[in-house]
């Protein structure tokens, strides 16, 4: 702690960059704990009251989430009123752990970064809560669903508001739990339960990374709170340690954000109800990894190797998700692949260092809006199509669901990066940043820039494919006349209004935040304001290139999926398509590399356990029993035998004593 103190006093206020905090108690900040408390209390109430709260429980959930949003908004406004250099605030909650040399306070870190997340989580969360009221209307466990949603919101807020890595870990685990519960919400269907388990296990692997990182931090900096760790003097720490911490944090981020190589769970996670996919697996939780990396910017800045790995992971996942997205016929899985790819963009940006942090978060926010909007749109489509998710059985839905069509279209254009939609402002900045050489490595700029650019083109193709297969072309679904009973219809207002609001965000948010680099300035107290280098290509050229690729992708998709006939039965397709359909053999690779050896290891361990440990234990037992059987024969029950034994023993004892003494 003294490190921070001396550091803080020795640095002039004007130069205070990331992670200096001033404690606050008064005003709106005093009620900041309610941000977490409201949804948490609501979740507890709904779970504890059980069926008694079935009738009104979902509205309580909506209220709790909305209340959190209101508090978040008030806090945000209060923070806007402060000078930009004093926008990092600490709300002290009390001593959490006091064990010998280790002292940790529980507290909330209110700064532009966490406030951004708070607003995103509570705003999108509240919209999705409202949407869910209608979407889950027919589910008898709707109240439980809302309890879990509230639990998720509370945990996510703990995650982003924590002022130490350990408290963040609590939220980290909390969102993992909520994600598990919600993916497996319909766990009476085995594949869904298995999907939940898979997500949980993959997250565990990431969590191990975070735990190891925690241990390394504690060993290196003597604390795990942001003040101690991020405020420490990194020059005194060995490069290896910093790289280790960075890689471990990256592992954690990969697990949570479905980045390569831990991305396989995200597609299966679509087993959860669609609002869950929208909130957790598109807008918020999966972006926690990006938050972690940006929050730990001080560490990554000091560990270039780790940063490079971050960029590589982001680039790989970006392409990976994009390719997988091209082949998926399941609308939700295609969106999940897209999410994976978009988070790849964010991770890539976060790995670029100060240049990219703000853009990573920027893209995260816009993505939170348009992707959530598209997921809700997909949910609306499923709602109208009797839970059909196969895009090959959609087609021509634009006429039947106008609002869904329009809102989804807004999201589609946003993710394509068509100006002036949100995605353009954020994604284009990331591509541009990728082209800026770091540390004079021009090849990196070219490599990662081209990957980002290529990703944009592929994104355009598969998102257009998704959009056209669903809303354009001829209908491929069955009507009553055909013997089926699908009758596409628009959803109720409770569902359309959240979609509309999110669509508005998809359209305008990017422009609003980007104008005058408002968002970047807002985040500057946390991310620092990195001075821009120049990209290897002029910015205008990059924008033009991106747009060309995007339009090419969209046109290609239009020709293949809107004009020409889409077969209902998926064609065999090219090898790449076949590979992409099975997530580029990711599951097979995982099975072969991890699961099978793991199983064999476990089996041999079980065998060893049986043979050696059990054998030893049983052997000892059997030996004892055998000895007992032999010794039992001496137990005649005759008192005189016992007396004789005693006396002979005494004689022997005395003889022994005499012999020893003589």
């Amino acid at each position, binding site marked *: 702690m003294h490190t921070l103190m001396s550091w803080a006093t020795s640095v002039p206020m004007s130069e205070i960059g990331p992670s200096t905090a001033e404690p606050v108690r008064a005003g709106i900040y005093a009620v900041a704990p309610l941000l977490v408390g409201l949804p948490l209390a609501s979740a507890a109430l709904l779970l504890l009251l059980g069926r008694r709260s079935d009738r009104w429980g979902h509205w309580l959930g909506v209220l709790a989430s909305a209340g959190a949003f209101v508090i978040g908004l008030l806090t945000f406004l209060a923070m806007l009123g402060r000078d930009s250099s004093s926008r990092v605030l600490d709300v002290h909650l009390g001593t959490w752990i006091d064990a010998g040399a280790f002292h940790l306070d529980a507290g909330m870190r209110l700064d532009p970064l966490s406030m951004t997340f708070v607003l995103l989580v509570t705003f999108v969360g509240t919209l999705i809560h409202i949407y869910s009221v209608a979407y889950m209307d027919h589910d008898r466990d709707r109240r439980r669903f809302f309890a879990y949603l509230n639990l998720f919101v509370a945990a996510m807020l703990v995650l982003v508001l924590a002022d130490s890595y350990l408290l963040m870990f609590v939220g980290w685990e909390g969102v993992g739990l909520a994600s598990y519960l919600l993916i497996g919400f319909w766990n009476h269907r085995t594949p869904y339960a298995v999907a939940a388990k898979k997500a949980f296990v993959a997250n565990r692997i990431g969590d191990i990374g975070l735990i190891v990182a925690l241990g390394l931090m504690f060993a290196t900096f003597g604390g795990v709170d942001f003040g101690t760790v991020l405020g420490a003097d990194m020059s005194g720490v060995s490069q290896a340690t910093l790289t280790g911490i960075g890689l471990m944090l990256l592992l954690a981020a990969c697990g949570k954000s479905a980045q390569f190589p831990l991305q396989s769970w995200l597609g299966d996670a679509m087993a959860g109800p669609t609002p869950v996919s929208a909130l957790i697996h598109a807008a918020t939780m999966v972006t926690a990894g990006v938050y972690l990396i940006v929050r730990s910017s001080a560490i990554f800045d000091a560990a270039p190797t780790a940063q490079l790995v971050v960029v590589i992971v982001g680039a790989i996942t970006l392409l990976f998700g994009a390719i997988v997205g091209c082949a998926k016929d399941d609308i939700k899985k295609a969106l999940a692949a897209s999410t994976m790819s978009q988070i790849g963009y964010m991770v890539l940006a976060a790995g670029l260092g100060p240049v990219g942090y703000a853009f990573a978060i920027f893209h995260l926010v816009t993505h939170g809006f348009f992707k959530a909007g598209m997921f809700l749109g997909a949910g609306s489509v499923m709602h109208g199509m009797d839970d059909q998710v196969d895009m090959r059985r959609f087609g021509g839905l634009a006429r039947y669901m106008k609002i869904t069509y329009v809102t989804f279209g807004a999201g589609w254009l946003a993710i394509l990066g068509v100006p002036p939609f949100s995605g353009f402002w954020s994604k284009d900045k990331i591509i541009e940043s990728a082209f800026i050489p770091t540390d004079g490595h021009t090849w990196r700029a070219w490599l990662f820039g081209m990957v980002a650019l290529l990703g944009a083109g592929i994104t355009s193709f598969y998102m257009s494919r998704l959009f056209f297969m669903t809303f354009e072309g001829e209908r491929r679904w069955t009507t009553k006349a055909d013997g089926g009973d699908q009758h596409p219809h628009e959803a109720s207002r409770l569902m359309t209004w959240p979609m509309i609001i999110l669509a508005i965000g998809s359209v305008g948010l990017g422009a609003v935040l980007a104008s005058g680099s408002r968002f970047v300035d807002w985040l500057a107290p946390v991310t620092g304001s990195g001075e821009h280098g120049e990209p290897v290509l002029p910015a205008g050229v990059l924008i033009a290139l991106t747009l060309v690729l995007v339009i090419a992708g969209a046109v290609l998709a239009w020709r293949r999926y809107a004009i020409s006939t889409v077969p209902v039965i998926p064609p065999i397709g090219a090898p790449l398509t076949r590979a992409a359909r099975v997530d580029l053999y990711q599951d097979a690779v995982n099975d072969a590399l991890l699961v099978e050896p793991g199983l064999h290891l476990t089996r041999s361990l079980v065998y060893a356990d049986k043979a050696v440990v059990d054998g030893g234990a049983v052997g000892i037992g059997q030996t004892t029993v055998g000895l007992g059987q032999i010794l039992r024969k001496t137990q*005649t029950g*005759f008192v*005189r*035998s016992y007396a*004789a034994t005693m*006396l*002979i023993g*005494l*004689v022997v004892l*005395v*003889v022994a004593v*005499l012999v020893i*003494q*003589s």
Partner: protein
Amino acid sequence: MSAVVHAALAGGTQTSGAEEALFWVLAPVMVLAAFGLLFARKAVHAALSLIVVMISLAFMYVAQGAVFLGVVQVVVYTGAIMMLFLFVLMLVGVGSSDSLVETIRGQRWAGWLAGLGLAAVLAGVLGTALYPDPVGLDEANAPTNPEGVARVIFSQHVFAMEVVGALLVTAALGALVLTHRRRLTPKRGQRELADLRVEGGHHLAPLPAPGVYARHNAMDVPALDPYGDPIESSVPRVLRVRGQEADAAEYAARIDRVLAGRSAKGDATNPPPAADPAGQPVNAPDIADAVAGVDLEGDGK
């Protein structure tokens, strides 16, 4: 006398000649008696030989200057404990002799081994131990041994003394509890017995006494009921079982005859016997005959 005893058996530093003589007389007797305990077939003999050992021990105590302990040995051990043993022996059957044939395999062997081994070991211990020069009890026993013992008991060991007292009380209580027998059936009192008799329809009044006639007032002669019939139950059961009962009918007939004869001879019976000059009843021979006849018959049975 007491002075001599005191001088001879004071438990001084050195053994006097008298004490030596006493030891050499008593020790073989004790060992022999102890072997009696080991070999005696009857438990009573074993107990008696143990009493011999104990009394001899009492002598030795006195000889060693432990006068108080010698007396206690006699009173407690031989007087109380061994008597208790004898009581119990009588309780569980004094006649039962103990078979010396061993039933547990190897027990005889083990027992002898243990006994002899113990003796050898004790010999070894006694042989190797270093003893101080005997101090003697002259000083400690002043003025008398009981006083010295009392001083030690009631000063240093007073708590132990109290505890031992409690132990004795507990032991007495324990013995009571252990030997207590729970009554399984309700107690039968006089009233219950009477009720039983009424229920069973037996003779309620006391049984009639046998031999109501003056000349035949013997136990084996049954009483007669008002009709002149003999009452069998008036004769003791033992005689009846043995068949030594007199024939009541015969008696009755003879008596009737005698009575009839007397009435035929007139009022001779009216005067009191004292009035008879011969000092004998007039009809004595008749009755004597009758009695003799009966007796003869009775003997002849």
